[in-house]
Structure formats: C-alpha cells, structure tokens
C-alpha cells in the first residue's frame, strides 16, 4: 500500500519552517501521541533516534513535538513558543538523544512515553518525508503492538472479547474508506484493533463514527 495517498501530502502542508520531516512531521507525531493518549499527560519523554537525534536542535523538532502535544497544526505560528506553553500547561517534557538504530527502523524516529500517574503509554512514530508520518508502535498495559504504519488508521479499544460493535465498525470502515488490513492485540481488559484504511474519512463520517464507537481514534 502506498505511503502517500493525497496530492496534498506532496503539495503541502503549509507549515512553519524549517523542515517538513523534522518540524511538520514532528508536529504530526506529537499530535498522534496526544490523540492516542486521549487525555492531557503530566509527563512526556521523547526519545530521538538517528537523524532526529543528530539534528533535532537545528530543525526545531523539540518545539514541533511540543506544538503537536498541544494540538497545534503545522502552520500555527505559536509553534516556536510551544515548549514554554507546554511547561505552563503543567506538562513535564524531556528530550533524550538515543544512540544506535531506530527500534522502528527509520532514520527520523521519535518514541514518546506519555504518563499522567494512572495511565502510561508509548507511541513510536517516524517522519517519512514531506510532513507525512507513520505510527509504527504503541505500547500500553504491557502490550507491545507493532502497527503497520501508514496513515490513515483507526484504532478502537474494546473492553470485551467478540464485541459485536467491532464487526459493525469493520463493515462501516470498509464501506466508507476501503479496509486494507485489520490487526488486533489483547490488552489488559479487552482488545485493541488497528484498522488500516485506504481513503480518508469525510468529516461527517468521522463525527458519526465517534458518536457510535466511543473512544475511537482516527489518525490521518
């Protein structure tokens, strides 16, 4: 399946400089981590690998990830000030330059640990160029999930096994956006599903899915 699906992956995004991989892509990884965590974290540790570890300072990757954690878009002019805003929001944010190869096999890798005292997750994202990202890893409740990577992707956590809602969701996603692949993982109190879809969800479709399937996560 193609990594790049939309002409706006190539002509775009409109963004604050200087690097689409290291700035706009980092904003997208920060945003994905925020969406997957589903609430405001208290502590965030960002582990950089390879090119990210070597050049994050020159490329503004730190403030870009901070901006993403606050839900900013890549063209938000507040992005260079995002680390201060994160600190003001009471989030402890730390960056670590890791030695050695990326655990998710890409030179532009950030592995982000998020926690708030009760909940703790890890999200591994890589920036594949032009501001486009892949989410290749999620760890929660002791379960390590190696996701396919390319977006758009829908995540849904079910708290019971053989939940009929899952097959409904499966059918709806296939109809609306072409289901490419489905993976599931056992988590402490249920199962987590990854739906890789071919097309983007129209805003109204997403709204109706969010209404019906509580806690659904859409990454694009």
């Amino acid at each position, binding site marked *: 399946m*193609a990594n790049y699906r939309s*002409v706006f992956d190539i002509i775009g995004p409109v963004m604050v400089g200087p*690097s689409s*991989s290291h700035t706009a892509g980092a904003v997208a990884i920060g945003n994905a981590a925020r969406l997957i965590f589903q609430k405001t974290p208290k502590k965030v540790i960002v582990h950089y690998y390879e090119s990210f570890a070597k050049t994050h300072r*020159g490329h503004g990757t730190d403030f870009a990830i901070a901006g993403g954690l606050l839900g900013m878009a890549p063209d938000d002019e507040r992005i260079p000030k995002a680390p201060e805003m994160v600190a003001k929001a009471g989030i402890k944010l730390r960056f670590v330059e890791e030695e050695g190869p990326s655990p998710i096999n890409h*030179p532009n890798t950030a592995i982000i640990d998020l926690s708030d005292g009760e909940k703790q997750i890890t999200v591994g994202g890589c920036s594949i160029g*032009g501001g486009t990202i892949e989410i290749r890893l999620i760890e929660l409740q002791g379960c390590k999930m190696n996701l396919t990577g390319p977006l758009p992707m829908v995540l849904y956590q079910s708290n019971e096994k053989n939940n009929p809602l899952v097959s409904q969701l499966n059918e709806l996603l296939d109809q609306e956006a072409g289901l490419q692949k489905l993976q599931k993982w056992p988590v402490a109190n249920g199962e987590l599903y990854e739906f890789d879809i071919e097309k983007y969800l129209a805003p109204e479709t997403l709204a109706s899915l969010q209404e019906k399937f509580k806690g659904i996560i859409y990454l694009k």
Partner: protein
Amino acid sequence: MFDSVKEIVDTANKTGKAISELIIEDEIKTSGLSRAEIWKKMQFNLQTMQKAVKRGESGKGVMSSTGLTGGEAVKVAKYRQTHKTLSGDTMMGAVQAAMATNEVNAALGIICATPTAGSSGTLPGVIASLEKRLNLDEDALVRFLFTAGGFGLVIANHAGIAGATGGCQAEVGSASAMGAAAAVEAAGGTPQQCAEALSIAISNLLGLVCDPIAGLVEVPCVKRNAIGAANALVSADLALAGCVSVIPADECIMALDKVGKSMPAALRETGIGGLAGTPTGQAIKAKIFGKDA
C-alpha cells in the same frame, strides 16, 4: 491512485484529459472532499507560496536567527534590475523566487512544503517565472500544482522524498522533476513530454547529497533550490524541444530510489558529511551549538 508515470501518461492520452484534471478526480475519490474544497485547498497552497516569495524578496528580505542565510534573494532582485544577467531574466526570476522561499523557511516563516520544506523553493521558483513568461492566470497555476503533485506522488511512493532516507536528490531532485513535468503541461506540451522532462530533471540531480551545515535547513539548501528551479526550466525546455530521455521516467525514479539507498548515512541529513563535514562547516556548527554538539 496512479502507480507509475506511464500510467499517468497512458490515461491522459486515452481520455484526452489534462493531467491536472486526472489528479483532481483522483483526489476527490481519496479524500472524501468535494472538487470545490480540493480546489480551494490548492489555491491556498499557491497563495502561501506567493506570499513567502514576496516576503523573501521585498525590502531587505529575511534573515535566519543564525545569520547563515537570508537577504540574498534581494541581492538577486537588485542584480536583475541593474545588470544584464548571464542566464536571462526568466531564469533569474525563478532563482530569485526559489531563494526567497527558502530564506523564509530558514527564518521559521510560513511556507508550503513541496514536496518538503527543504525543497519548498523549487516549485515557487518555476511558478514565478512561468507566470510571467506564459502569462498564466491563477487557475492555470493551481492546475500546475495538481500536475506537479500527481507526479510527485509517484516519486514519493516509489523512491521517497526525505533527505534522511534519500539525500537531497529525493527533495530538490523530486521537486525539480515535478516542476519540469508540470511546466511542460503549462506550456502546452504532451503528456509524454511531461514524462521526458521529469526523467531529464531527475537524471541531472541524481546523487545529490543532503549535507546541511549544523543540521540546519540553510546551507546549502537555499541555493540548491535555485538550481532545482533552473534545472526544472532547462529540462522542460529540452522536452518541449523534442529531446527525449533514454531511460524511461519510471526507471529514473527506480534509480533515484536505489541511489538513495546506497548513500551512506553521513550524506543523508545527519549534518556529518559533505559540506557539513568541511572545516568551515564544523566550525559553524561548533559556534552555533557549542563544541560538544
């Protein structure tokens, strides 16, 4: 979605539709958005590019916080007014707009990544010169971007567009190829001539390394975009003149991918090799980030 340049050319020949139209129709299917919404989005991208060009070439221009880049698009503008340029005014107009954009990017200004921020000046460079040379209106420039983006998607999916994986040939090289192909369509060339221009443009920049000084998107990025825009115009002219690429477009893209994969990491956006590794490059890095960086 189109999987190859050949598929784009064949479909355009078979349907008689412009390539830009094929890409718009494809985007409607993929995005769930209407034609009007998609058009508006591309128009906004075009206007963002034009604003960045204007910002970089007006007054004293912009300077980056490190002082490494900035103010040179303005120098080019003045030179064009006061001198007989060696490569001609259309060419230097492209160069000026390309550099203006990347100077704004280096100053953390707002730009449109095409396909990346590091290569964001190349297409605006081509656009600025075509607009004047061919008297293109806004609709034609928006169509230019759809065509460029359509070819860019094929390159991105088969070779990649990140300096960290493929070197600068994947960034400025891709942008230049997209610009060359779209310029041919804007000038009234055939779909096959678009493919020839794309092939020629890629061939000319094959092997270009990504070696940013201090890891910053400044040197040599700004001037590489000048060359990316110029290469796009030369390649488009060659194709329009009837020159052909011996190697077909999709194989040129394959070569781009293979060359990128065989490049050592020091030359893939790590700020270690190439110009970044020179004594001056290293000294600048130490000055900006300290000796232990």
